[in-house]
């Protein structure tokens, strides 16, 4: 293979006896998440770079706090380790570019005791090209593409930022999403705008949204077709998160699978309508902290109202999940608005202006 001897790759090379020896080398150096890795051979890494048209030394960004440069070569090595095929790499690269935007607070969210993970949501044609499956097990082991993309992002956090448990990663508990936390939106199964369009990107653009997120909180309500009653269950879960975890508002993701989604869509509700409803309903009185054992921090502010969302736009509604089951999920933010979700287009030209002003961030990731 022509790329096998790519002379531009500059990473240190190790010669190991076989596959097993490669595993032990990587585990011994703390370069894994505890699971076996795909050995990152020069041809495999070069193939990733070739797919997106990036030079090995292309700078994808600099981690803002510790000033760590992130190059395409290093990211591709970690992507190969995670099991990525070359076609997956553009998503990994764009997710990382989004995470390096200042508002994501990359150092804070990867080092915090709060123990969040990078939730990655994929929109646009690339979902179909890479075989991402947004239906059954959308938040679990749904498909190869989302499994390896989410894992690649985490491995790169470990290896490029030295974010290891007990080191920079001070997570008290963490959660299973720290292995991989990635899903695609079921754009073919909904009438709603894709998340990327709701956040300002044009139709037809492939995109990645990243959010520093806690574990999913699953809800169930299969006993109504009324959108307000369905969404009241989501609101209750958001309020529970506010009281039991963090009262402060931020970006929330809600994942609505097809069974509940069809009831809401049939009633003519848009994602915007859902955001406005939950903006009003998902809020708690500070004094209610006393009902969950946190009375000591209520102080003289018992009547203060804390909305889960600073505005309806802070809700990220994602259509995903299997066709049957009156379930849904609320995915809370790591810690209020200290971090913000970032959406970036895949393959966008960095010199091209956005179609309109907005809060959405756009990144670039090859062609």
């Amino acid at each position, binding site marked *: 293979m022509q790329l096998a001897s790519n002379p531009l790759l500059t990473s*240190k090379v190790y010669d190991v006896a076989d596959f097993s020896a490669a595993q032990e080398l990587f585990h011994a*150096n703390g370069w894994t998440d505890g699971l076996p890795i795909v050995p*990152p*051979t020069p041809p495999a890494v070069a193939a990733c770079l070739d797919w997106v048209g990036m030079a090995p030394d292309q700078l994808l960004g600099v981690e803002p706090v510790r000033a*760590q440069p992130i190059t395409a070569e290093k990211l591709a090595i970690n992507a190969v380790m995670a099991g990525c095929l070359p076609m997956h790499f553009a998503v990994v690269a764009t997710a990382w570019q989004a995470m390096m935007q200042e508002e994501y607070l990359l*150092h804070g969210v990867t080092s915090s005791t709060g123990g969040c993970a990078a939730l990655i949501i994929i929109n646009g044609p690339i979902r179909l090209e890479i075989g991402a499956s947004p239906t059954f097990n959308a938040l679990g082991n749904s498909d190869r593409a989302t499994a390896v993309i989410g894992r690649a992002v985490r491995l790169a956090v470990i*290896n490029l930022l030295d974010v290891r448990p007990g080191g920079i990663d001070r997570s008290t508990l963490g959660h299973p999403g720290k292995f991989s936390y990635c899903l695609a939106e079921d754009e073919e199964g909904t009438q709603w705008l894709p998340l990327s369009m709701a956040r300002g990107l044009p139709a037809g653009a492939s995109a990645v949204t990243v959010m520093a997120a806690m574990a999913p909180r699953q809800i169930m309500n299969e006993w109504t077709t009324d959108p307000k009653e369905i969404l009241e269950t989501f609101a209750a879960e958001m309020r529970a998160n506010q009281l039991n975890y963090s009262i402060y508002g931020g970006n929330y993701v809600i994942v609505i699978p097809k069974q509940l989604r069809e009831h809401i869509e049939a009633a003519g509700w848009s994602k915007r309508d859902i955001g406005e409803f939950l903006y009003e309903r998902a809020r708690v009185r500070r004094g209610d902290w006393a009902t969950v054992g946190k009375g000591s921090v209520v102080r003289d502010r018992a009547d203060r109202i804390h909305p889960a969302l600073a505005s309806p736009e802070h809700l990220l509604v994602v259509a995903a999940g299997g066709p049957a089951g009156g379930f849904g999920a609320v995915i809370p933010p790591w810690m209020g608005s200290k971090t913000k979700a970032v959406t970036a287009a895949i393959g966008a030209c960095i010199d091209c202006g956005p179609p309109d002003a907005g809060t959405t961030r756009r990144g670039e990731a090859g062609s």
Partner: protein
Amino acid sequence: MTMRVLDPSNESRVVGGQLAARPTSLKGKTVGFISNGKEGTKGYFTHLDRMLREELGVADVIWRTKSNYSAPADAHIVDEIRKWHAVVAGVGD
């Protein structure tokens, strides 16, 4: 047959800052505290403040709190550090 693999770590490390000179004594000196603002820091820094003044003769203890407990200290706090002889950046929960 051997297998050739690449190092996944960030080998291109940025050269970090240099450590400031260590004071040989804290007597008569000014010590700054940079708190992350969490509840647990109050008791810790209150106790440390007393120890520094009473047991080590520190002249002044300056308390500052970051605006975001998970982000680096604000620029105006970093600017103040040059006026201090020592700083304690505590992590507390």
